[in-house]
């Protein structure tokens, strides 16, 4: 079960466009933020096409609002499909969340209640999107800072059921599991081990900010030891899964992210060696 294993990659950010084009660093693949390239032309598109010549690309979006109750944004989906046709990514991902309602946009990745009614709603929307895009959607578990009284199941059961019923794949963000586990007091191991391997398409690794009583998924720090440990557990459970270092703020030189990517590769290799010993 390799789910089209791409290897180890880095999220491509504006600060690194020129570096990646000029130096062609030794990364297996790159993930781009879809919305950054939904523009008519100019430098962003130029760089995207330049990196696409040398690397497999995954498109990762933040605006689909797959769990929203406003109608699906057909204009957005049309642009997403056009970009996908243009770039031919390995897959297209977004987040298992909602971002706005009544035409207002929070530009945040907001959680939903975990219950069957919501599952039915989301599955229906995923199927519509998959029909439009002509491919399976990959959805990421989000970090959350609240849960709802309207939930009657655990997040991991909610995710598994959605994947089973919709045919979508899961981008398992290891850092998000850790952050949510600390914010809600559940075991990250329980979450990890409950997710069914057949749904997993990709891992994300990132850092966060620790405020003692709670954590925020800021993506502005190196991947911390606790997340590396959870990643090793994930590799032990799921095997080789395409893994990506994600950084969105306090962006360091590309070499630093590259070093983290190599560290992920070392952990995966070491874990698998131990598993097979």
């Amino acid at each position, binding site marked *: 079960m390799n789910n089209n294993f791409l290897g180890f990659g880095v999220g491509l950010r504006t600060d690194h466009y020129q570096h990646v084009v000029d130096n062609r660093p030794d990364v297996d693949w790159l993930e781009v933020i879809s919305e950054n390239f939904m523009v008519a032309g100019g430098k962003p598109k130029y760089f995207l096409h330049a990196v696409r010549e040398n690397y497999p690309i995954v498109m990762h979006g933040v605006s689909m609002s797959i769990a929203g109750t406003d109608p699906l944004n057909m204009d957005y989906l049309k642009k997403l499909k056009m970009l996908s046709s243009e770039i031919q990514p390995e897959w297209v991902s977004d987040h298992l969340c909602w971002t706005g*309602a009544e035409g207002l946009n929070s530009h945040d990745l907001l959680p939903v209640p975990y219950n069957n009614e919501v599952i039915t709603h989301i599955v229906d929307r995923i199927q519509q999107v998959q029909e439009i895009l002509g491919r399976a959607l990959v959805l990421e578990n989000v970090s959350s800072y609240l849960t709802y*009284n309207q939930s009657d199941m655990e997040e991991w059961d909610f995710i598994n059921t959605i994947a089973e019923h919709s045919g979508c794949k899961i981008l398992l963000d290891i850092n998000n599991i850790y952050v949510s586990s600390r914010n809600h007091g559940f075991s990250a191991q329980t979450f990890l081990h409950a997710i069914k391997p057949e749904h997993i398409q990709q891992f994300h690794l990132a850092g966060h900010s620790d405020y003692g009583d*709670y954590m925020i998924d800021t993506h502005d720090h190196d991947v911390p030891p606790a997340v590396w440990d959870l990643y090793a557990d994930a590799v032990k459970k799921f095997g080789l899964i395409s893994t990506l270092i994600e950084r969105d703020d306090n962006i360091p030189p590309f070499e630093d992210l590259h070093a983290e990517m190599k560290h992920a590769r070392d952990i995966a290799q070491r874990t698998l060696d131990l598993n097979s010993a």
Partner: protein
Amino acid sequence: MLDLRVLQSDLINYLVHKKQKVDGYIADGGSIDKQTRLNIYSNAYTLRLRGVIDIDHEILSYYLGDELFDQLVQGYISAYPSNHTSLRDFCSNVPNYLKDNPPFNEYPVIEELARFEQTLLFAFDASDSTTANMLDLNKLSIEDWPDIKIRFHPSMQLFENHYNCVEIWQALKQKRTPPEVQKCDHSTWVIWRNAQRITEFRSLEISELESIQTFLKGGSLSDVCEQLQSHYPEDEISKVAVTYLSDWLNRNQVSIIITQKNSLTSQ
């Protein structure tokens, strides 16, 4: 599905308008209380949108200073909550907000500065297009020249100002002290993206502005020459018109040269 719709409606109105009561939705438990949990989302909403205004209006934020910039952020987020899918469009009403609201509307140069930054942004990621060059022009027989029409590159924009906002922008961009605000009679700048995809701008003499406007309205080179008669002696008109045309071509401002027989582009 009504429950989820109501929940999302209440929560988005809480985040955007800070009025809705939503703590009844939030489960108890964990090491932090409900209000802290809601505040995390509420603070993130403001910080995220502030960050977008800061990035899109970097020079404006320097010019205003922290206190006024905070006032702009709070006022703008409240007056124009995002109804855009992409954050790329969130700041589109910043110039309007500055024009309509005190204390900003007491200093019209601020609105001009914001509008200038938005025009630069538009040029940055406007559509790509073919570009024509001097070789294309030279391919034409001389009898075709009077009928020449041109289509400018999609990134090309005209920016009108009544204050020295561009000089202020340039000084702040170079981390110099900006000049005092000065009213200018009326000036126009042309902004475009060059062959290296770098945004450039330069000021226009009235005769060059009118020549561009004539082409933008679908006029021909002979129309431009006729219009130039009000600025130049008869024997200089052809030379001036060709100079403009070659400048635009060399600067990557022209997509297509159109004649009655054909359209010419290089790439």
